[in-house]
C-alpha cells in the first residue's frame, strides 16, 4: 500500500509572515555578499581582458561566498533579540501520553549503550514519567548479539525493567535505521502516542523527556520535536574543540535555524520526539529506483522524514531551549571524515528528491543545502585550480599598447581588491564566532565556560584549529563527492565510537595522499605561477602537515582550554551513566538473571 500526497488529507502548513520576512532578509544578505565577492574578483581579473577562466572563477566565487554568507546569516538571525515574551513551557496534562524510548543499535558496544539506557530509565522514573524503552537491534554479528542479550539481562536487573524495557533483534536489517524504526511502529506503534528516537550514544535527562512530551501534548499539530544535543565525553584536542563549538556556538546557530525554518524544521535522526501516528502515516520510506549510491535505501533518512511530516501537514520544530540532551562526537579527524563520507553520500542522494511531489518549498531548499554542504568543497577546490590556470594563461602585459609611446603603461595593481575579497571571506567565517562570544559575554553565558577570558581563548583556539584542518576537510569532502559521483557506494558502516588517539603512522596512512597533493600543488604553483605561491600557502601548508595534524589533534587534551559546562558540573544523567558504567566495568561478569525474572507478561 502506498500513499500519494494527492490523497493526503492535509497540506504542508504555510510559513507565517515573520518567517517569510526573515528568510527573505537572510537570502538577500547571502546573495548580496556573493555579488560583492564576484564583483571584486571580476574587477581584479578583467584588467587583462575577459576569458573563460574569469567567468568560471566569477561563478565559483559567487556560489561559494553565497554558501559562506548563508552560514554566517544563521548566526546573525540567531543573535537577533527576541521579539515578544517567551511563552511559559506547558506542563504535562492528565491523562499522560503513552511514551516509548526507541534505541536502534547496530554492532554497538552493548555495555556502554545499555548503561546509558539504565541511566536514562532512572532519570525518567525520577521525573514520575511512565515510559517504555525498546532496544531495536540490527546487529549482524552473532557474538555481539549474544553479548547484547547478556547485557540486556543485566540492564533488566539493574532497572527492574521487566515488562517495560524490551529488546528485539531483526532477522534482516532492511532499510537500516529507518527500516528498524518502521518495523517497530508497524508492530507496536499502536501502543504509544509519542516515541523518543535516540542513537546508541544518546543520553537524555528525564526532565527533558518530560518537557518534550508536554510540548507535544500541548500542540496537536506538532509532529516532531528535535532537541539540540550537546557533545559530551570528548577527550582529544579535536574532540574537545568540537565539543566546545557544539556547546558554545551551536545554540545560537540553532536559534537562527528555528527562526528561518518555521514549521518546516529539521530532524537530525536522534534526540527527537515524534508523534507516532503522524510518523506512521507520513514516514514509510520507499526504496529509490536504481542501484546505490543514488538509488536503493534512503541513507540520510532523517531529512526526508522531516520533509514528509511537513508534507503531511505536521509541524516539525527544533527547540534549542530544551536542556539535558547529549550525544558523543568523533574523537579525531579520521573518524570525522569517515562519518562525513556517509553523510555525503546520503545528502547527494537527496538530489533525487528535489522534485518530489508535494514537498514544501523550504524542504526542497533544505535538501539543496545538504547537497551544497559537500559540493561546496569541490567548488572551492575548483576555484583554486582555475585561479592557478587563469594566472598561467593570462596574456603577457603589453606595456606599450599604442605605437610610438615614449613611456610604458603598467597594469593597475589589484592587490587591494584581492585582499578585500580574502578579508571578506575570512570575515564571514570568523565574524559569527566573535559575535557569539560578544553575546555570551554580555549575557554572562561565558561564566559556564570558565569566564569571558577563558571562553575567548577557547574561541580563538577553535578558529585556529578550524582554519588549520579546513584544507584537510576540503580534500576529504572533495574525495567523498567524487567517489559518490563516480558511482562508488560507501555503504553505511557502523559507527566507530570511543576510538582513541592515532599514532603518527596512522596519521601518515590517512593523510599521506593529502600531504603529497599539497606538496605537488605548491611545487607546481611555485614553478608556473610564482606570484600565487604566497596566496596558496594557507591552503598548502596544512596539507603538507596533514599526517602530523591528524595524529596531534587526536591526542588527549587535559588543559582547561575548551572547557564546557558539562565538564565542570555534569548533568545528573551523565553522573548516573558514569556510575553505572563504572560498576558494570568493574564487575565484568554478565550475571544473568533467571528466565522467570525476565519473563514479559503477554
Amino acid at each position, binding site marked *: 500500500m502506498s500513499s500519494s500526497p494527492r490523497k493526503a488529507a492535509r497540506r504542508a502548513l504555510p510559513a507565517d509572515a515573520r518567517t517569510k520576512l526573515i528568510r527573505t532578509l537572510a537570502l538577500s544578505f547571502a546573495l548580496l555578499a556573493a555579488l560583492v565577492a564576484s564583483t571584486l574578483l571580476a574587477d581584479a581579473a578583467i584588467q587583462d581582458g575577459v576569458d573563460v577562466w574569469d567567468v568560471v572563477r566569477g561563478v565559483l566565487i559567487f556560489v561559494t561566498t553565497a554558501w559562506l554568507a548563508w552560514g554566517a546569516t544563521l548566526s546573525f538571525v540567531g543573535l537577533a533579540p527576541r521579539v515578544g515574551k517567551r511563552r511559559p513551557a506547558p506542563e504535562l496534562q492528565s491523562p499522560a501520553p503513552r511514551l516509548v524510548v526507541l534505541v536502534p543499535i547496530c554492532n554497538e558496544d552493548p555495555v556502554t549503550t545499555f548503561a546509558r539506557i539504565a541511566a536514562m530509565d532512572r532519570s525518567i522514573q525520577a521525573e514520575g514519567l511512565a515510559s517504555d524503552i525498546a532496544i531495536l537491534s540490527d546487529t549482524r554479528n552473532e557474538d555481539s548479539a549474544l553479548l547484547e542479550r547478556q547485557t540486556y539481562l543485566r540492564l533488566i536487573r539493574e532497572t527492574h525493567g521487566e515488562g517495560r524495557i524490551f*529488546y528485539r533483534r531483526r532477522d534482516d536489517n532492511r532499510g537500516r535505521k529507518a527500516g528498524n524504526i518502521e518495523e517497530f511502529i*508497524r508492530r507496536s506503534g499502536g501502543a504509544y502516542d509519542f516515541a523518543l528516537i535516540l542513537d546508541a550514544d544518546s543520553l537524555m535527562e528525564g526532565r527533558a523527556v518530560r518537557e518534550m512530551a508536554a510540548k507535544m501534548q500541548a500542540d496537536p499539530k506538532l509532529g516532531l520535536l528535535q532537541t539540540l544535543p550537546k557533545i559530551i565525553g570528548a577527550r582529544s584536542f579535536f574532540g574537545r574543540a568540537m565539543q566546545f563549538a557544539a556547546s558554545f556556538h551551536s545554540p545560537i546557530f540553532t536559534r537562527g535555524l528555528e527562526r528561518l525554518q518555521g514549521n518546516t524544521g529539521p530532524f537530525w535522526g536522534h534526540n527527537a520526539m515524534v508523534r*507516532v501516528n503522524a510518523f506512521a502515516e507520513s514516514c514509510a520510506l520507499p526504496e529509490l529506483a536504481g542501484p546505490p549510491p543514488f538509488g536503493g535505501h534512503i541513507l540520510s533518512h532523517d531529512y526526508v522524514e522531516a520533509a514528509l511530516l511537513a508534507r503531511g501537514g505536521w509541524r516539525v520544530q527544533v527547540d534549542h531551549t530544551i536542556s539535558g540532551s547529549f550525544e558523543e562526537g568523533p574523537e579525531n579527524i579520521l573518524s570525522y571524515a569517515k562519518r562525513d563520507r556517509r553523510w555525503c553520500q546520503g545528502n547527494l542522494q537527496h538530489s533525487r528528491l528535489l522534485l518530489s511531489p508535494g514537498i514544501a518549498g523550504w524542504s526542497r531548499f533544505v535538501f539543496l543545502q545538504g547537497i551544497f554542504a559537500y559540493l561546496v568543497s569541490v567548488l572551492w577546490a575548483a576555484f583554486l585550480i582555475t585561479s592557478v590556470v587563469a594566472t598561467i594563461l593570462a596574456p603577457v602585459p603589453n606595456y606599450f599598447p599604442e605605437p610610438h609611446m615614449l613611456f610604458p603603461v603598467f597594469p593597475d595593481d589589484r592587490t587591494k581588491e584581492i585582499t578585500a575579497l580574502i578579508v571578506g571571506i575570512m570575515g564571514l567565517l570568523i565574524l559569527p564566532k566573535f559575535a557569539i562570544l560578544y553575546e555570551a559575554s554580555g549575557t554572562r553565558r561565558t561564566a559556564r565556560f570558565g569566564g569571558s577570558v577563558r571562553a575567548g581563548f577557547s574561541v580563538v583556539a577553535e578558529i585556529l584549529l578550524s582554519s588549520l584542518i579546513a584544507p584537510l576537510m576540503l580534500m576529504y569532502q572533495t574525495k567523498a563527492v567524487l567517489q559518490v559521483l563516480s558511482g562508488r557506494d560507501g555503504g553505511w558502516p557502523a559507527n566507530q565510537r570511543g576510538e582513541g588517539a592515532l599514532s603518527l603512522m596512522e596519521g601518515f596512512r590517512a593523510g599521506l595522499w593529502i600531504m603529497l597533493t599539497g606538496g605537488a600543488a605548491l611545487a607546481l604553483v611555485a614553478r608556473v605561477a610564482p606570484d600565487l605561491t604566497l596566496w596558496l600557502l594557507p591552503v598548502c601548508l596544512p596539507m603538507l602537515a596533514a599526517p602530523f595534524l591528524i595524529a596531534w589533534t587526536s591526542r588527549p587534551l587535559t588543559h582547561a582550554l575548551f572547557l564546557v559546562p558539562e565538564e565542570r558540573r555534569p548533568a545528573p544523567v551523565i553522573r548516573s551513566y558514569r556510575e553505572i558504567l563504572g560498576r558494570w566495568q568493574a564487575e565484568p561478569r*554478565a550475571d544473568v538473571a533467571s528466565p522467570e525474572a525476565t519473563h514479559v507478561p503477554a
Partner: protein
Amino acid sequence: MDEGLTLTRSSQQTELDMGKDMNTDAHLDAAQDWLPPEAPLEMPRQVLERDSRRAEWPRLLRLILPGKAV
C-alpha cells in the same frame, strides 16, 4: 570527563568469554519474551518520485556523471 570508562575490544571479548563459560546460552534462549507489545499500526509507503521521473532521473544522472554507462 569520561576517562577510563571506555570499554575496550579485549574487555568485551573477556566478558563474552566469561558469559559463554557460564553456559548462559540456554538461559538466554529460554528468556526470549522480551518483545515490545503487539499493537500494529499501518504505515503506508510514501511516494517520493513520480513514475515518469522515477525512470528518467537515474538515466539523467548516469548521463551527467562519469563512471556510469547510460
